């Protein structure tokens, strides 16, 4: 399967979890990768795996919620590869607290990393996509955006914000051959969900019709699908990958 041969994908939060799986899946489909995250060491590991697949990987650590570093990152990627065809806005954090105990910095940090970074990265990357009249932007939202979750008002707001962002930008770019879609994972086995107490895990599993947590690769395959030529007529949509949790 080399349907993405010659294409370049930028994935934020690519050091682990869903971002790492998406980067590897896109590399297996033939794409070269630009990898971003805060910690370089994890990115180097993922880059090694991508190079082992015979694809090129550029490691670009930095804060993707700030325009300056992002413009630098995109410039570096363009000098290296010449174009960016796929953007996966995946960087995300949680700072859980019940609302009455939620601090303003918990709110601000989550919104900054999860939502603002998607805006900043999309603005930086879309310039080139508009020029070449093609591109794929995939925003990693969450089923929590759709159903809400006690203790995650900040996270839910940021992920719901991504959906509104997705639809608006999809409308702006539709006439230029750029599709913009969101993927809403349910509970996936990552570091973000690993530390859940056993009781919470059981509670969750009871609410997933399929009865088990998903793997990062389940989400990654949807990202690859939305990057592929076969989905050129799909834009402004939200795809749940959640074992049937929300339907």
């Amino acid at each position, binding site marked *: 399967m080399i349907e993405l041969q010659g294409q370049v994908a930028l994935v934020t939060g690519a050091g682990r979890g869903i971002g790492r799986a998406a980067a590897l899946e896109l590399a297996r489909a033939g794409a070269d990768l630009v990898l971003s995250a805060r910690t370089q060491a994890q990115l180097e590991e993922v880059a090694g795996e991508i190079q082992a697949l015979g694809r090129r990987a550029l490691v670009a650590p930095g804060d993707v919620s700030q325009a300056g570093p992002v413009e630098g990152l995109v410039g570096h990627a363009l000098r290296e590869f010449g174009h960016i065809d796929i953007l996966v806005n995946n960087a995300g954090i949680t700072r859980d607290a019940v609302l009455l105990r939620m601090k303003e910095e918990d709110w601000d940090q989550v919104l900054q990393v999860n939502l603002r970074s998607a805006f900043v990265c999309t603005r930086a990357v879309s*310039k080139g996509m*508009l*020029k070449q009249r093609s591109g794929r932007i995939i925003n990693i939202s969450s089923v929590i955006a759709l159903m809400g979750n006690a203790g995650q008002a900040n996270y839910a707001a940021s992920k719901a914000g991504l959906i509104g962002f997705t639809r608006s930008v999809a409308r*702006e*770019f539709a*006439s*230029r051959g750029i599709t913009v879609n969101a993927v809403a994972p349910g509970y996936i086995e990552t570091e973000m969900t690993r530390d859940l107490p056993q009781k919470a895990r059981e509670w969750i599993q009871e609410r997933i019709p399929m009865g088990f947590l998903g793997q990062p690769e389940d989400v990654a395959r949807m990202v690859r699908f939305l990057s592929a030529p076969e989905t050129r007529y799909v834009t402004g949509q939200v795809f749940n990958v959640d074992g049937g949790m929300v339907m």
Partner: protein
Amino acid sequence: MSSIQEKVTQIVVEQLSVEEDQVTPTASFVEQLGADSLDIVEMVMALETAFEIEIPDEDAEKITNVQEAVDYLEKKLAAA
């Protein structure tokens, strides 16, 4: 026709996919040449690249036809 005007006209023709004879100095990009807001942003980006300058948003808003673009560029390039 000045070389700046020729270059601007060429960019307008390409960016807005219009015929050259439609692009008169005073033809409005939006009303007469059918540009939408994204077309305008892309055209300004193309002008920036072609003339190797930066056009701030507040200046870009004032450029609504070829003549205004040429006047702006002449002033800007003379100052550089």
